[in-house]
Every structure is written in C-alpha cells, then in structure tokens.
C-alpha cells in the first residue's frame, strides 16, 4: 500500500502550491513565442506534482492563505485525495497522449494553453477547502474548458461550445445563488463547517442543479454528447474522465449527505433521476454511430448511477462518509476506464490493419466491460461498494435498487458492446499513433485495471468483491448483455431503427444551427435613417417656436404697445398701493 510520506510542513506546502501552480506556469510559457517550445515539452509533466501530492501527502494537510481571494484554504482530505489521483493520472496521460495526437496541429500551443489552465483549475477545485475557493476553481475550469471544446473551430464545435457555455453560465449563477444563500447562514465558509451544517431548501436545490449541469444530470446533459465528439481526443478524455466528476465532487462537498432531517424526498427524486439517466443514456447511446458520442452517452448513464449513489446518501442518514467514499471509488473507476476508452478512439485505425491495432482492440475489452462490472475488474469493486450503500437504505428503496442495479449493469454492457462494435468496424482515417500515445494509453489502461485494487484504504473490499457469490452477480448481466447485443446485431440493429441526433433533448428547443441573432448592417442603417428623419421633423417643430417668438417680439416694439404697457403699469402700481 502506498503510505503517505510527507507530513504537513514546508515541502508539503510547496508541493501543494505546485499542484495548480506548475500547470499555470507552463500554460503561460506557451503564450510567449520564445518559451513556447519549452512549454510544449513540459506540458505532459505538469500533472506530476498533482500525482505526487495524491500519492505522498498526508490527508489532512491544510494550508490557509488568508490574503488569497476571499480567504483561501487549500488542502487534501480523503475524498480529495482520491479525486486528485484520478485527475492527475487522466490529465497527465491525456496530455502525454495529446502531444502525439496534435503533433501536426499548428495551433497545438493554443490547445495546450487551455488544457493546462483547465487542468490547473481542476486540481485547484479538488484541493480547495473552502466554499469560495471551490467555486472559484470550478467556475474557472468550466470557462476555460470552452477553449478545449471549440479547438477545431468547426461549425459543430462552435455550436457545441455555445451550448456548453450557456449551460456553464446558467450553472455558474445557480451555484453562485446557492452559495450566497448557504453562506448567509454560516459562520464561516470552510468545507468542514459546511459538512457539519445542514442546508436545505433553496440552496440545496440551486446547488444540486448547478453542479448537476456539470455532472451531466438528465435533462441538463445535452452539452455532453455535443462537446465530446468535436473536442480533440485528449480533451474528451479529461472531459468525461475528470471534469464531469467535478460536479459530482461539488455535490459531495455541499450537499448534506447522510444527515438526519434533510429532505428524503429529494433523495428519492435524485435516485430516480439517476436511474432514469442510467437507462436513458444507454437507449440514446445505442442509437448513435460515432464512437465518442456513444462514450458520451455511456458517461451520462454512468453519471446517472453516481447520481443515484448521491441520492442514496440523502436517503440513508448516518451513512454520509460511506456514500462519499463509495462515490469517490466509483468515480475513480469510471474516470480511468472511460478516459482509456476515449484515448483509444484517438489511435484506432482500420480493423485488423496491424497486429498492434487488433491487440489494442482486444485490450479495450477490459476497461469497457469493467464499466459493466465484470468480475475481477475495477468495475466489480465499484459495483460492490455501490451495493454496500444500497444495503443501508430504508425499505422500499432497498428492494427497488436490488432489482434495478443488475439491470443498469446489463444496460451498460449493451452500450459498451455497441461501442466495441463500432470500434471494431473501424474509425475514420487517423494517422498512426506515436509510441508516446501508445505508452500513455497503456499507462492509463494499466491504472484502470489495477489501481482500484491497490488504492482503497480498506483493501478488504477488494477481497470481498471477489467472493464467489458475488462473481455470479457480476457476471450474469455482462453475459446476458453480450448475448442480447449479438442477437440484436444479427436480427435487429438498434441504430438502424432508432436515430436520435446527438444532444437529444436539445433538438426540441434548438433544432437547427442558428447564429446568435445579431442585427445586421442594413437594419442598423435603416434605423439610423429613420432617426435622422425624426430628427428633421423635430427640428421643424423646434423652429416653429423661435419664429413665432420673433414675430411677437416685433409686435412688442410698437410704441403704441409700449404706451399701453406704460399706462397699465402706472395704474397697476396705483391700484395696488391704494389697496
């Protein structure tokens, strides 16, 4: 087991500040012409401090930076450590991968600039130990990811970017409002305080939806299937592998998980919503052709499962830490597996063209099926901790979920099989992967396969998850799913009968490509013209008074009028004085 080597102290603080600091420095090196090449060389290594921090630092390290923003606190806790490890691995491997993937792109420095700042902010939000720090990094990460999504500047990418940005802004203000409401009741804004307090009502709802946008909560998931296919492969990998987990982390940090007297109704709703997403994602995903879109829908489905977990946390008082831990394990497992699948889409060539390629296809089965919870994969552990949580639930939910959970695994099997088939069918032509790409992919694959086995603090789970009774429970959905897919390929290919455009629900509200409605030049000129005309009329009107005024003034010059005024005034004075 990895044991924390570094205690609180100077080196720890230095390492902690390098976690977001190094990527930022490298990112800004990319902006200068002179330092650009060095920056590109360094880019894949920028995640190393994060990795080191995740592996070496003692949970509980805490660093208060009073002058920073509005009172900053950075540190590592148990949950953060697990998320940081995931983030460091995926970001690092994807960056390494990306160096090769974008080797022919003249704007690779632009990509890596956004990549690195997004990475830094992602690390930052994991480390943040106070409300505003979390919000700060969350917001920054969301905004800078825009640059990743629109990197290839195609119309589809712009549209996806727009949808993403709109949703990000909506999420942003929702989170802001939720946090304001929450902060107004708290003595201070540290996460520890928040965890101890119970927040309900408005702020709960606002934060749930706000973070839900990032976490791909149905029906706010529409940006995911749009953004993934258009973004460069490494960007998709981190998007699906890590960044959507930030929303999850937000829930873990700010929702009152496992507390008494908080809205069980909300918990139930969240569980149902999660289950809905789990199946909905699969159904829509089966109708897709494009591999990255399929993976995106799979992510939606998997995030649905995690949403359900969070919902369980709300339903099960007293099990907060357990749920949190389960979610972080699940997230670790899903993040690594999904990222390695995504990276694979960036190096696939026509099927069977080379031994390496076909070998890679076979290797893909492991992360793919681990998503479905195949025994002896990381997915099995994830499913196991999931069940542990479910067992803690009160009566109706326990029954429902025990019944439904295997079905979600089955559904997942369907979609990963669909994905594998599409992969095997071949991808649009891509240049052959460089050795670095292969190496980074392998690294991710290995960590996906192994890490959940070695990582947990209680290895007991690993052994429990491999008990014989559970083996069958894990195996049958996969087998059944595989058979269903075989049958459907043969007689009833889903994607031929069901076509849903990527972004599904979005098409109801925004059916076609529309540029932002900007008034065009002709319209502007027309208005200007009418303004001028109105001005002329106004001037005519204005001139009326002076001309009349001059006329009257002329009349006033007559002596007779003056005489009359003279006499009148004399009389007026006399009368008024006599009175």
């Amino acid at each position: 087991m990895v044991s924390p080597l570094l205690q609180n102290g100077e080196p720890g603080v230095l390492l902690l500040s390098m976690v977001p600091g190094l990527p930022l420095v490298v990112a800004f090196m990319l902006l200068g012409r002179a330092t650009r090449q060095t920056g590109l060389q360094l880019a894949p290594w920028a995640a190393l401090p994060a990795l080191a921090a995740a592996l070496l630092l003692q949970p509980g390290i805490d660093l208060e930076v009073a002058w920073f923003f509005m009172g900053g606190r950075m540190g590592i806790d148990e949950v953060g450590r697990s998320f940081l490890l995931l983030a460091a691995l995926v970001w690092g491997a994807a960056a390494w991968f990306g160096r090769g993937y974008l080797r022919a792109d003249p704007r690779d420095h632009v990509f890596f600039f956004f990549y690195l700042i997004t990475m830094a902010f992602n690390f930052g939000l994991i480390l943040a130990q106070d409300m505003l720090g979390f919000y700060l990094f969350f917001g920054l990460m969301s905004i800078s990811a825009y640059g990743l999504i629109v990197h290839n500047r195609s119309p589809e990418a712009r549209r996806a970017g727009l949808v993403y940005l709109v949703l990000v802004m909506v999420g942003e203000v929702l989170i802001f409002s939720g946090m304001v409401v929450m902060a107004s009741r708290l003595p201070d804004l540290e996460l520890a305080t928040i965890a101890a307090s119970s927040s309900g009502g408005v702020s709960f709802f606002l934060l749930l939806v706000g973070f839900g946008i990032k976490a791909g909560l149905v029906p706010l998931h529409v940006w995911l299937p749009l953004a993934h296919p258009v973004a460069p492969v490494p960007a998709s990998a981190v998007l699906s592998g890590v960044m959507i987990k930030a929303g999850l982390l937000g829930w873990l940090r700010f929702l009152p998980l496992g507390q008494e007297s908080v809205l069980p109704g909300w918990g139930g709703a969240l569980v149902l919503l999660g289950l809905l997403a789990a199946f909905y994602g699969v159904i829509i995903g089966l109708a897709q052709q494009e591999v990255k879109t399929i993976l995106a829908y799979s992510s939606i489905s998997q995030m649905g499962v995690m949403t359900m977990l969070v919902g369980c946390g709300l339903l099960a008082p007293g099990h907060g830490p357990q749920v949190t831990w389960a979610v972080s394990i699940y997230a670790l497992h899903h993040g690594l597996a999904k990222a390695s699948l995504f990276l694979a889409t960036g190096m696939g060539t026509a099927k069977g063209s080379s031994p390496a390629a076909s070998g890679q296809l076979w290797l893909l089965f492991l992360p793919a099926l681990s998503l479905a919870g195949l025994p002896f994969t990381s997915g099995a552990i994830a499913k196991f901790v999931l069940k542990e949580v479910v067992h803690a639930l009160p009566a109706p939910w326990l029954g429902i979920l025990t019944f439904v959970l295997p079905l979600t695994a089955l559904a997942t099997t369907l979609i990963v099989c669909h994905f594998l088939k599409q992969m095997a069918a071949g991808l649009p032509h891509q240049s052959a992967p460089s050795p670095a790409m292969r190496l980074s992919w392998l690294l991710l694959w290995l960590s996906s396969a192994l890490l959940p086995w070695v990582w947990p603090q209680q290895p007991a789970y690993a052994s429990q998850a491999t008990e014989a009774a559970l083996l069958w429970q894990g195996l049958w959905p996969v087998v059944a799913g595989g058979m269903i897919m075989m049958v459907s390929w043969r007689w009833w290919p889903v994607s031929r009968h069901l076509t849903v455009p990527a972004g599904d629900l979005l098409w109801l509200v925004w059916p076609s490509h529309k540029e932002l409605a900007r008034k065009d030049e002709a319209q502007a000129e027309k208005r200007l013209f009418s303004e001028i005309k109105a001005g002329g009329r106004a001037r005519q009107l204005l001139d009326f008074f002076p001309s009349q005024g001059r006329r009257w003034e002329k009349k006033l010059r007559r002596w007779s009028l003056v005489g009359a005024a003279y006499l009148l005034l004399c009389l007026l004075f006399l009368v008024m004085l006599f009175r």
Partner: protein
Amino acid sequence: MALSPSLLYGLTGLMLFVIGLAALFTSPQLLGKILAVNIMASGIFLFLITLAHGSGTLIDPVPQAMVLTGIVVSVSSTAVALALLCRIEAAARPPAHLPKKKDEARQG
C-alpha cells in the same frame, strides 16, 4: 375742494404731461416724438413750480432750482435728439432707391 390757482397750475402741468405722453406714443414722426417729450417736460416744470408755492407765503426755492436745472437738461437732451435726428435723416437719404427705409427710420 376749491380750485386754487396752484391746483389749477398743477393739474394743467399734469395735463400737459399726459398730452405729451399721448403724442409720444402715437406720433409717427420722430420730430413729433421729440416735441412731445418737450411738452411733457414743460408740463412737469409747471407742476414743479406750483409746488414752490406750497402752503405758506414763503416761496420755496428748491423747486425753482429744480426747474432751472431741468430746463437746462431738457434743452441739452433736445439738442442731442435733434442732432441724432439729423444724422438719421442724413443716413437715410443717400440711397434714394430705398424710400421705404426712410419711413422706417422716421418711425424709429
């Protein structure tokens, strides 16, 4: 109230003032206006003189001094007015093709 000579003179003076006033306001000619002003001045002088008579038998010298000075002022201002009138006439005459302007000028 009996019509004492001083009252009669005074009222006459005021009448003259009013007549001058009327002429000033109605006379179309500048010369007429100048004369009207003179008549007004004379009326006032008459009025002032009656004040000197006053109540007692002693003649008050102050109004007389006022009238004397007033006459000087009146004469000089009439002179200025007449000189000005001459300049106006002179300025209006040369452009014979503009007879209208002359009328305007005369009316002031």
